[in-house]
C-alpha cells in the first residue's frame, strides 16, 4: 500500500482498538441488570487491556524506529464479586432475599466511555492532519 499518510499504521490501529473498547463498554451497560447469564451466574463485567506494539516493518536504522501501534491484548472478565442487593420479590432472590447483581457501576462505565471517545476523536484529528499535509505536498510542483 502506498504510504501517503504518515503515521497511518499507528492511527488506524488506535481507531480499531477504541472501537472495540466502545463495543465492550456498550455490552457492559446493556447487561447491567442480567442476573442469569448463559452460565447461570450473573453477568460479569468485561474490560479491555491495551498494549503497544512496535510497528511491523521497521528496521533499526530507519528514522521512525520506535514508533508504536496499539492493540487490544485481551478482553478479560472483571474478577470482582457480584453486588448483593436486597430484593425479595425478584425471581432470582435467594433464601435471604438477596439478589446477585452484575458487578457493573454505571458511573465507571460512563467515564470509560468518555475517555474512549476522546481518544477516538483525537486519533481522527491525527488522520485529518496527515491528510492536510499530504494535500499540501501534492501542490509542490503546481504552476499557476
Amino acid at each position: 500500500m502506498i504510504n501517503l499518510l504518515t503515521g497511518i499504521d499507528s492511527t488506524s490501529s488506535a481507531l480499531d482498538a477504541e472501537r472495540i473498547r466502545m463495543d465492550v463498554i456498550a455490552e457492559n451497560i446493556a447487561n447491567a441488570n442480567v442476573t442469569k447469564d448463559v452460565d447461570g451466574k450473573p453477568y460479569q463485567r468485561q474490560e479491555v487491556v491495551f498494549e503497544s506494539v512496535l510497528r511491523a516493518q521497521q528496521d533499526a536504522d530507519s528514522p521512525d524506529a520506535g514508533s508504536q501501534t496499539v492493540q487490544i491484548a485481551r478482553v478479560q472478565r472483571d474478577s470482582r464479586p457480584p453486588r448483593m442487593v436486597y430484593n425479595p420479590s425478584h425471581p432470582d432472590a435467594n433464601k435471604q432475599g438477596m439478589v446477585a447483581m452484575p458487578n457493573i457501576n454505571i458511573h465507571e462505565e460512563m467515564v470509560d466511555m468518555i475517555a474512549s471517545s476522546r481518544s477516538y476523536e483525537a486519533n481522527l484529528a491525527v488522520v485529518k492532519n496527515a491528510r492536510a499535509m499530504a494535500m499540501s505536498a501534492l501542490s509542490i510542483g503546481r504552476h499557476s
Partner: protein
Amino acid sequence: MDALSALKMVTTPPAGGLSANSMQDLAASATKSIPTAELQQLSSINSDSPLQTSGAVSAGSGASFENMLGGLVNDVAQKQASAGSAVTGLLSGQNVSLHQAMISMEEANVSFQMMVEVRNRLLDSYQELMRMQI
C-alpha cells in the same frame, strides 16, 4: 521519456538517426549539428577572451562546449533517474515520503528546463554568429 523526445525533435538529427534512449547521443548530436570547424573556432574564441561562460566549464581546449553540454546532460539524467526511483519507491510502499517524491520530481523538471534553455541560448548565439560572418 516524452520530454526528451521533444528536445530531440528540435535538434537536427544526424543522417544515421538517433538511438531513442541515449542522452549521450543527444549531447553528441547537439554538437554535431554545429559543424566541427565552427565549433573549434568558437572554442578558441572562448579560451582567448577574458569573458567566462557560465557554470563549471572544463579547461578551454578544443571541445569545451561539448564537455559542458555532456556534463549538463549527465547531471540532468541523474536528476531524472533519482526522481524516477523516488516515485518508484513511493508507489511500491518503501520508505519514501510523498513530499520527497514531489520535490525530486520538481527538481528534475527544473533541471530539465535549465538544459532546454541552455540549448536554446547556444543555438541562438551560434545562429547569430553565423549571420555575422559574411
